[in-house]
């Protein structure tokens, strides 16, 4: 496969319905704000600019460099997008990228798309913005601030997104907290270094060729203080939560249990129904009958469909 970015796209089935739904809701709200802001900031140019840059991020994820042992480093691009476009446009761009990856390339599930956008698009962007802006401010827009800020923003965006994935898996009861956090965190601490180095390389190129794109002296866009605070909060929260969760896995287990409990409660509601609808038939018997009927129908349908296509082809 020519295209293989960091393994961070959660497939369907790996998050509980509740977690997926909550993250969809959060993502939808943030994305709504971002879409509105972007229209105000970029005006008519927004569509071509962001569409093409989303394609550039996707293509950029294919650029690799050899790391030890036949593996290679790749770019995720959230930090680079944030530095070049500002947080709001970056959120929209990353949403487009992650969306196309799921829809077209099955990289990440559709039901958990909200979570994947949240991890790579929103968290990654907020944290990058927070780090990069802070460094710019600290260094007064000097070279070292740009490069050090870019490196740390990229590194942190990867690590934080990975920790978020681990936490979501644990809360969904799909992976024990201590293992997931240690594994995801550990691996991505290394992968993040690659992301950081590539980002710095890209910044060096752009610094030489088109310094104006790095928005060094640009006034912070509207609403970016909120983003900055958001980034700070998320970074702090995860830095605090992850070690806590992995040293006390029981806490998260408990959440996972509650989560499972909700799933259960929800479904036991439905289990009442059949007894009213089909009085006198035991569940097992019903199961067999329905299975038989549905199976028959399916086979019948397939046969019909195949015959139909044959006829079309020969016609």
């Amino acid at each position, binding site marked *: 496969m020519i295209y293989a970015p960091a393994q961070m796209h959660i497939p369907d089935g790996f998050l509980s319905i509740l977690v997926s739904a909550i993250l969809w809701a959060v993502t939808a709200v943030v994305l709504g704000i971002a879409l509105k802001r972007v229209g105000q900031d970029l005006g008519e140019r927004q569509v071509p600019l962001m569409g093409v840059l989303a394609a550039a991020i996707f293509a950029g994820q294919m650029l690799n460099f050899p790391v030890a042992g036949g593996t290679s480093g790749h770019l995720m691009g959230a930090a680079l997008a944030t530095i070049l476009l500002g947080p709001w446009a970056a959120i929209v761009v990353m949403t487009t990228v992650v969306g196309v990856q799921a829809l077209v390339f099955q990289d990440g599930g559709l039901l958990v798309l909200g979570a994947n956008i949240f991890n790579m698009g929103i968290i990654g962007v907020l944290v990058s913005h927070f780090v990069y802006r802070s460094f710019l401010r600290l260094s007064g827009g000097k070279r070292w601030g740009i490069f050090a800020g870019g490196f740390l923003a990229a590194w942190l965006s990867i690590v934080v997104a990975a920790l978020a994935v681990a936490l979501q898996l644990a809360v969904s009861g799909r992976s024990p907290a201590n293992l997931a956090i240690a594994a995801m965190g550990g691996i991505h601490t290394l992968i993040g270094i690659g992301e950081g180095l590539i980002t710095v390389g890209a910044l060096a190129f752009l610094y030489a*060729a088109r310094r104006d794109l790095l928005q060094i002296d640009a006034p912070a866009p509207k609403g970016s203080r909120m983003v900055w605070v958001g980034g700070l909060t998320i970074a702090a929260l995860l830095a605090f939560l992850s070690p806590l969760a992995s040293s006390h896995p029981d806490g998260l287990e408990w959440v996972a249990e509650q989560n499972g409990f909700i799933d259960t409660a929800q479904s036991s509601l439905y289990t009442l129904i059949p007894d009213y609808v089909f009085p006198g038939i035991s569940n097992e018997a019903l199961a067999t009958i329905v299975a038989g009927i549905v199976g028959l129908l399916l086979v019948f349908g397939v046969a019909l469909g195949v015959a139909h296509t044959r006829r079309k082809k020969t016609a």
Partner: protein
Amino acid sequence: MHHSIEVQNLSFAYPDGHVALREVSLMIAPCEKVALVGPNGAGKSTLILHLNGILLAPTSKAHTTGQGQVTVCGMPVEEKTLGRVRAAVGLVFQNPDDQLFSPTVYDDVAFGPLYQGLPAGEVDARVASALAAVRMEAYARRVSHHLSTGEKKRIAIATVLSMQPEVLVLDEPTAGLDPRARRSFINLLRDLPLTMLVSSHDLAMVRELFPRMVIMDEGRVVADGPTAVLLQDEKLLEAHGLEKP
């Protein structure tokens, strides 16, 4: 003495099944300058990509989509000679923007020598002499991105000259140049003392610069001979979508 380039019976299909080369054979002697012409899709670029192992002839196990053998400066092109083949054959692509990916001209020209692991002093010397060969000494500290197309093309050539190749292979070098830049580029090519294989649609340049010409169409070599003779053969040219310059 060995030939600079020896292609024997090379066939190749892309992964999607499209056959791009069919039993191509081609010999080029040291210091010969040969033009490769033919319509779009003839397979010129595909052939060129074989000459430095970016596409591999099927002697290597991993690639079994074709057959044949490519030998460059006496080395068969295969997995384990790749490094040395790439140092011996300098490949310059059509669009210079695809080749200049470093912040400054210096960094770009230094890529090859640095990759080879040469010591810093040697790298410096290589860069200086490569830039001198394309007459761009003054540009070392410039940002490639801001140069004109003609200047970028020269730098692109310098990026492979710094590896001191024996053979220079260029894909459509004059495409997109205005007449003035084209003229100065032709003069540059004339002066470079290397074996040269150049693919082009610019038959006027071919007539001026290359004593020998190879015509490809639909993956085959359909003619190979003195440029002056082939360019007189209007029937041949027309049959392969070419026009007398």
